[in-house]
């Protein structure tokens, strides 16, 4: 089995600050994802990457940057934290090329609070 590790688990930032969230997976999966989880809004896709150095925007990419430095790692940057923002960011990975039958494996999340 494999594991997805997200760091940090909790992140407290100041308004306007640039904040970086990191994700590592040892499944050797091709595709990695960043989702934002808000109560009542479900899981919304921010960015995904189908291979090293690839980046694809999701529906919620504005205000975020991402970087796929190597196959096992995928980082997300909040370019300017919004005051009173509170959300959980979930990283996930899956095997590529299964024709839509991807099963996503999720990390435990990074909980962001902005003061």
């Amino acid at each position, binding site marked *: 089995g494999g594991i997805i590790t997200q760091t940090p688990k909790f992140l407290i930032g100041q308004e306007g600050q640039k904040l970086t969230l990191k994700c590592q997976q040892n499944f050797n999966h091709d595709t990695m*994802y960043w*989702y934002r989880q808000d109560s*009542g*809004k*479900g*899981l*919304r*896709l921010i960015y*995904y990457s189908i291979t090293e150095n690839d980046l*694809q925007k*999701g529906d919620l990419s504005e205000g975020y940057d991402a970087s796929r430095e190597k196959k096992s790692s995928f980082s997300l940057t909040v370019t300017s934290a919004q005051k009173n923002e509170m959300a959980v960011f*979930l990283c996930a990975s899956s095997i590529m090329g299964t*024709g*839509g*039958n*991807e*099963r*996503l*494996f*999720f*990390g*435990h*999340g990074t909980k962001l609070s902005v003061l």
Partner: protein
Amino acid sequence: GDSVTQTEGLVTLTEGLPVMLNCTYQTIYSNPFLFWYVQHLNESPRLLLKSFTDNKRTEHQGFHATLHKSSSSFHLQKSSAQLSDSALYYCALSNYNVLYFGSGTKLTVEP
């Protein structure tokens, strides 16, 4: 574009009663994959079941769902709710690139 609709945000049931969580979807693809993910408190979401075949019942861990392309639905059901079923349930649709999730249904099962 592709989307998933879960109409109930909160469902509260008494233990032993049947469970039905609604899921409908919109997609341009004629052969979508539909999924149910479950997230228990303080845990990450995990796959519960999935389907690709029209009108075929899929079962896992006491839950079942049938993909009906004619009505674009993939409702999650269980015959008898247990306390341990209390969790957040997400319906999701694959468009062959990414998964689109619904807004989620929080199921609470009471004694």
